[in-house]
């Protein structure tokens, strides 16, 4: 985790300045690191490696939503690691009871999980979006999924431009909360 620090930090600084391409690249790179991290940790904890992608998505969302807490003067890797670890412990805690019967299959899970690179979680985005209030869903769909401008989204959803931004922020927070609830396994 030492060599990518310089590069990742550069991407993070650009992303904090509003560079969407850098933000995409950063999240993509980080999700690769997170996937490897969660697979090895889950395997070591005797858990199903199949849950790794749920965790990757939860952590990526957390990184996105909490990126204002990164201090640009500090190295990035410890910050990411602290979030990744926090989400892992949270996950292990809330799924403790339901997985007590798993350890025997763990070794199989590792081999089964390793050749499956299709990074897909058990979560259904369309269904999670359904859970959002109308105004939030409309703003997110317009700007984030259809790639429209904030002004266009405002016209389409019938709200002001500033509330489009607020709705997106709150909507993503709600989405993160429901993802955490869904991956309760």
């Amino acid at each position: 985790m030492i060599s990518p620090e310089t590069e990742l930090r550069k991407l993070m600084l650009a992303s904090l300045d509003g560079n969407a391409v850098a933000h995409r690249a950063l999240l993509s790179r980080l999700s690769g690191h997170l996937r490897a991290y969660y697979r090895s940790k889950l395997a070591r904890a005797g858990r199903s490696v199949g849950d790794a992608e749920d965790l990757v998505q939860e952590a990526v969302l957390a990184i996105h939503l909490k990126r204002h807490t990164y201090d640009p003067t500090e190295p990035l890797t410890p910050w990411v690691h602290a979030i990744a670890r926090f989400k892992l412990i949270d996950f292990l805690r809330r799924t403790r009871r339901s997985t007590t019967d798993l350890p025997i299959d763990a070794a199989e899970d590792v081999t089964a999980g390793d050749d499956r690179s299709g990074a897909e979680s058990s979560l259904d985005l369309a269904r999670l979006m359904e859970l959002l209030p109308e105004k939030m869903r409309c703003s997110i769909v317009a700007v984030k999924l259809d790639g429209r401008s904030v002004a266009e989204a405002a016209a389409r959803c019938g709200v002001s431009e500033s509330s489009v931004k607020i709705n997106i922020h709150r909507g993503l927070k709600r989405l993160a909360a429901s993802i955490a609830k869904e991956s309760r396994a």
Partner: protein
Amino acid sequence: MKTEELLDLLSTGDVGVDRTPHSWTIGAAVVIGAVAALIGVAFVLGFRPDLADSRAAGFLVLKLSFTIAVVVLASFLLTKLARPGGERRTRPILIVLPFAVIAALGLVNLSFAPPAHWEAMIVGDQWLECLLSIPLIAIVPFAATIWAVRKGAPTNLRLAGAVAGLFAGGVSAMAYALHCMDDLLPFVTVWYGGTILLCALAGAALGPRLLRW
């Protein structure tokens, strides 16, 4: 859901971020907490009548130095603990310092007095009021602090909760000092120090639930 889909979702449109330093949010909580505590003391308990008296002022300075030291250290720790991994970059043990100093001064004070006076010096006149008031006055500052820390992303929730409690107890004790007539250091050590620690314990118990994100 494919992770790629999520990444597209998160990186489409305006990705700029509000860069207001998080320490400002903590600062706002400090101000809200202090004002709320002062209002509580001023309107419910009332300030002590001899505030202008020089002897009382001397004791008041000591009490305030202790409580302000707790508040300053705790709010500094909170700015660290509200960030991911912040618990690794700080030494929460520093917070013991004001307690150690006031306890040492209290012991010196006791050692100069005959043992027959010790009980009165420790128990004072208003220990029960002190025991009840400080945690009660701490409620609003505690809520403000939890709000501020939640804006960040603490990764050690028990510790962050404990320090939030410590901070709230310190702010509350600071305001309560303007009312309380018990001035002796052994009293301050036990009842001010003790109730602030109780607030910290309550914060440690509540932290994991209130600060989860």
